[in-house]
């Protein structure tokens, strides 16, 4: 029977990040993945001949540059292409374009409202300031305010000191920002519906909240703190699809001697006397390891893979109440030609960015009301991208892959499980919305993959299909994520760690949870990490 120093359950991007850091620090690491490929929710798959699908996550921005450097991902083939802009199509046949260039962006706003164009300057400044608050928290383990361990106390003091560098007014603004709804926040700056709708979308993507729910301003931040080539807030495509991120991680991992085993689903995490001893695979194989790191979400890890008896009752209770709440679906479409959007000028750069049809916050919020009642939105919010407009490697010339993120989509339909009929009706809702803005769209469709939370859970293993491995609400952030007292990647079981998005700082293809988990593990092993950048330390 083989024995490894460390075993990673699940080959998602965070699992691979942890694996890389541990292997580089001299451990013998095995990654076991249930699917026939690694990548978790960051994959590129040829679901129909000639088309590569980024069939879960679809754009890249949040992945921490420090990790890219540490793990030499560019050397292993990762290339991120920033995209230029996007558009919100309005019901009156017009559109609001967005551009990477701040001034062009402002001029486009001015086309709708001069006042909003001026407010945009203030808005951009204020939000960027808030990003500077949050970024230092990403690459640090959240301190436990109640452990009273010297390390936590000094970390708290460090953060207090950083926070103290801001003026009382800035601090008050931050407290406000963290607790506001994105809708209320935008109302303080803008008057135009479509501009507010465009800016609000980052506040709701992936979360089971509407733009009018307090806390969505923070979610906006969660999507803004990314960067591409050092330009904060920029988004881009990974050349070759999102799988390129995890493929590069896998190569980086194997290049330093790590082992990956696919088609190897873990059925049980073994524990003896409060310690983990390894895992049992679905095929009955047992793999021994003193360290087991779970990339699976906290629900799957502790309610499905670990015996409840070996866990403290209150911990299990908290995990059972950890909010997953899938809220989104995905429709991936192979097209035999570039769709037309008559609203846009010929060859507009907007086609090379993200496109939306939701032109008011009210429409967005009403879509959320459907979700609250257990239905997918009748008038859903779509985030569409056509990466093949910039990346020729995903489809043959002239053909295109379109990724269509759909919100809101409940984990259960009015309390019952999804059926295939539901899924098809859901897809029709999406396609008909697109077709109403893009004549002849249906005729271009070569192949289509429809993913409701059911499909996402079955393939990727994300409970309830929640793309963040748990809601990003206050009660599930920082030292509360996933469970108060267990927010530092350790679990009640010695040797068993968590490294998925269920842990701080949460979801998105960011890699920070994986990196921070590795740091904690190495700390417990009293090893100094090799090639690990210092925790982010600028405010």
């Amino acid at each position: 029977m083989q024995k490894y120093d460390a075993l990673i359950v699940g080959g998602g991007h965070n699992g691979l990040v942890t694996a890389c850091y541990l292997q580089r620090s001299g451990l013998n690491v095995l990654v076991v993945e249930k699917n026939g490929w690694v990548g978790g929710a960051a994959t590129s798959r040829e679901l129909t001949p000639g088309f590569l699908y980024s069939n879960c996550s679809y754009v890249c921005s949040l992945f921490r540059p420090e990790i890219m450097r540490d793990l030499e991902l560019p050397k292993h083939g990762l290339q991120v292409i920033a995209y230029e802009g996007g558009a919100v199509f309005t019901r009156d046949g017009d559109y609001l374009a967005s551009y990477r260039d701040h001034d062009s962006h402002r001029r486009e706003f001015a086309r709708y409202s001069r006042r909003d164009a001026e407010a945009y300057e203030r808005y951009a400044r204020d939000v960027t300031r808030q990003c500077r608050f949050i970024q230092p928290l990403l690459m640090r383990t959240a301190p436990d305010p109640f452990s009273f361990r010297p390390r936590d106390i000094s970390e708290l003091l460090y953060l207090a000191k950083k926070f103290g560098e801001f003026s009382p007014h800035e601090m008050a603004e931050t407290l406000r920002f963290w607790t506001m709804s994105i809708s209320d926040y935008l109302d303080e700056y803008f008057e135009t519906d479509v501009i507010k709708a465009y800016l609000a979308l980052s506040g709701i993507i992936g979360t089971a909240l509407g733009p009018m729910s307090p806390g969505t301003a923070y979610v906006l931040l969660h999507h803004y703190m990314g960067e591409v080539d050092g330009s904060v807030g920029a988004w881009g495509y990974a050349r070759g699809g999102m799988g390129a991120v995890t493929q590069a991680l896998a190569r980086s991992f194997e290049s330093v001697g790590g082992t990956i085993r696919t088609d190897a689903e873990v059925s049980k995490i073994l524990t003896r006397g409060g310690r983990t001893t390894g895992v049992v695979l679905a095929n009955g194989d047992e793999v021994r390891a003193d360290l087991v790191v779970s990339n699976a979400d906290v629900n799957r890890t502790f309610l499905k893979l670990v015996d409840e008896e070996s866990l403290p009752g209150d911990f299990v209770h908290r995990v059972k109440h950890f909010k997953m709440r899938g809220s989104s679906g995905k429709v991936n479409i192979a097209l035999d030609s570039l769709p037309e959007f008559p609203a846009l000028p010929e060859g507009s750069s907007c086609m090379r960015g993200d496109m939306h049809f939701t032109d008011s916050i009210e429409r967005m919020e009403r879509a959320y009301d459907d979700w609250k009642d257990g239905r997918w939105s009748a008038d859903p919010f779509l985030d569409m991208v056509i990466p093949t407009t910039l990346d020729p490697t995903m489809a043959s010339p002239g053909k295109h892959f379109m990724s269509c993120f759909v919100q809101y989509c409940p984990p259960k339909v009015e309390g019952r499980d999804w059926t295939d009929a539901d899924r098809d009706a859901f897809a029709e809702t999406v396609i008909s919305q697109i077709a109403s803005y893009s004549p002849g769209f249906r005729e271009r469709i070569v192949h289509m993959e429809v993913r409701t939370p059911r499909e996402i859970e079955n393939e990727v293993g994300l409970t309830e299909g929640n793309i963040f491995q748990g809601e990003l609400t206050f009660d599930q952030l920082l030292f509360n994520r996933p469970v108060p007292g267990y927010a530092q990647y350790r679990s009640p079981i010695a040797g068993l760690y968590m490294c998925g998005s269920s842990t701080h700082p949460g979801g998105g293809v960011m890699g920070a949870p994986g990196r921070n988990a590795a740091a904690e593990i190495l700390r417990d092993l009293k090893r100094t990490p090799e090639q690990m950048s210092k925790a982010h330390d600028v405010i």
Partner: protein
Amino acid sequence: MTSFDAIVIGAGHNGLAAATRLAKGGRKVLVLEAANEPGGATRGRAFAPGFRSAGLAHLVNRLDAEVARDIGLDLAGGETLLPTTVLDGSGKAVVLKGAYGESIDGVSSEEAAAFAAMRTKLAFQAGVLKRFLRRPPPQIGAIALGDFATFAAAGLGLIRKGRSEGRDFLRMLLMNVADVADEYLTDDRLKGLVAFDATLGVHLGPRSPTSLLGLYYRLTGDVAGKTGGQYVPSGGMASVAPAFVRAAEKAGVTIRCGTPVGRILADRGRANGVVTRDGTEITAPIVVSAIHPQTTFLNLVDPAESGTGFVRSVKNVRSYGNVAKLDLALDRIPDFQGLPTDARNGRIVLVHSMQQVERAFNPAKYGEFSPDPVMEITLPSLTDPSLAPAGGCTLSALVQYAPYRLKAGWETGKPAFLKIMLETLKRHAPGIEKSVVAASLMTPVDIEAEYNLPGGHWHHGELQADQLLINRPTSAASGYRTPIEGLYLASAGAHPGGGISGLPGWNAARHILSGATS
């Protein structure tokens, strides 16, 4: 003409509390009230021949004992707590007795135990928050010694029960009430009640994050030390305003009614008096505004004195009411199905589930009123017979949601909404429609007009996480001081917020007397 040390604008309970504390602190105080009688939102009004309403509030549940003692408020009746009865239309009532359901009738013993567990948890956490209510909000950046003391005391209070309580506190603080109720309770009626109590008076639904704060706020109130208790003073709610007035006059405060203020005099960033609307100039080194912060800074102060950035932040204060007040004149005591006779004098909440509250909230987001509203009811004339002619009865209801900015406009909306309310009442008290002598519905727009309350919001601004503590009403004007030296805020729009507590006014006065500068 006599000169004064301080002018208080507005003779609501907070204005009078502030004036009384200042007078007891040796200041010569003048209170200017726009209406012809004092009391503000606690001011009663006749709404039908022989029938009176005692004002906006129909229960006392957070009057601060220390404030009452300090300003010498004599308000009897606090020794008998009133029950809350939840009616879901099934005829099977749930009755919460004692202080916020110390004991419960009408649910299984398991459910009663579950509610007790939740109540204990929330009351403990509210107790921690309570420490911050009796003093100005801690000013981060320049934390005062007193703030440290408060924080330390709060911290110790937290870990007194072990670190898991502390962790739970930081986890739950900004949660929504729905998730908390779901974790503890199974009975829809109880869930509906806590959902209603958490969201009454704020623009949130039970599933909106931070909605638990509303329930915490209720539980920071107490009656004779009993957390979450509620009562009606002997003599009825109509005796509240006079009690505040008596206390003020006893302390030597001069109250001038029918004297609306036209402008606050400020020169080079310093307030030095007011000009009444009839042009009389009254000077004083201290001006305390116990009216809505937006009225204060958008109508009474020259923007040139306060600054455009500040004015913008004041405009951004969200202060649109969501509650309508219904007063019914009845020719007999209504018969609510399932309501025990001994609970008639208490609070009656018409709600059948948490989802009903959430669904009632949805339309409010889009400027529409709830087609199936939730409401809390009292029968004021049972405690104060003077409100109705012999044999008659008054019914007072706070109905949610009724957004101030109704898309269709309240001229057309009002009769439609009133009809829905009467239908709702009819379902719970068959025959009530026949006994209605007169109905008076006040939408937030009417409340705004009647009480000079912008937006008709009784908290003088949304009581939500982003408008609390150092952000109440806005960071540059929090802690009672304002950008204008000598001008202070003392209304519900200041920390800690609305409800008949007397705290904003009393805290403001103590802050002024402490000599702390603006």
